[in-house]
């Protein structure tokens, strides 16, 4: 295994740990994007550019937008907007 591959794997492990340890949902969504970026780096280092591009669009665009939409909806309801 190349040293760069080990670094990328450790970066992913660290990112996953940070996602679990973040307790606030908004902060967790942001940390998740960083974790997604670490996955992109991992795929690029392991020479899988197609998968890296997929991971980039999913963890950078699709997932955060859906997540932020859901979080905003729940916060709005808690402040007395819903029901």
């Amino acid at each position, binding site marked *: 295994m190349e040293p760069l591959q080990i670094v990328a794997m450790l970066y992913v492990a660290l990112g996953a740990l940070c996602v679990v340890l973040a307790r606030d949902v908004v902060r967790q969504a942001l940390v998740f994007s960083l974790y997604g970026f670490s996955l992109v780096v991992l795929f690029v280092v392991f020479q899988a550019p197609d998968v890296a591009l997929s991971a980039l669009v999913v963890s950078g665009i*699709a997932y955060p937008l859906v997540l932020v939409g859901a979080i905003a909806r729940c916060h709005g309801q808690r402040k007395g907007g819903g029901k």
Partner: protein
Amino acid sequence: MTTRVRLAIFSSGLVLVAALLVDGVSNLPPFGRYAGPYGDIVARLVEPQRHMANAVTAVVFDYRGFDTMGEELILFAAASAVALLLREMRDHDTSDLVEGIRSDALRGVGALAAIVTFVLALQVVAHGFITPGGGFQGGVVLSAAFALVFLTNEYRAYNRLASSSFAEPVEALGAGGYVFLGLLALALGFGFLENFLPFGVTGRLRSGGSAAIVNWSSALAVSGGFALIFSEYLQENVAVRHGRVGK
């Protein structure tokens, strides 16, 4: 349940999982050693057989296009489910609401960014058989262009662009077109989703044969699906902010 009982259950589970994990990992092939032959075979055959430079997209939309059809329909079902659930909870139409963004600079830069993202998305889809990319990645980038319009411009402008009356037909056209191409290949005497057009010259934009059309229909399905999901969530949030959620 006392702490001791919990700890006992937890530690017995932990030992079991650890044993399975150690057993599984110790029997893995050495790092970087790939036992299956298909990756190498496809990498060698894709250029002479299909005139495609990118083997990954060739597998996704040509050799195993049937698998991708399943994924496409999963996304279609997910977007439909989101629309069904959220629309049931909303009483009122939100298309008449105005969410103003006052900064002209933000709107200008946002419109520019949306246009650039749009062109980038078309580029990613069109070059799917030449460089990394293809219908799925490009489709998500395409829906990001619509999301940028919302983030930097008015809700109403976004609603005009990506309203359900626009996103729904695009998604349906993409998902339906994918299935239609498979049936068309059958009708022409080929296998389901088999490539039935001339393959073209490797590395050219027009290479890929009928898999290139499959690629574009999947881009439509993905971008329509994500645009629909985004716009449902956004309408939901706007409706909550203006107190227009019923039931």
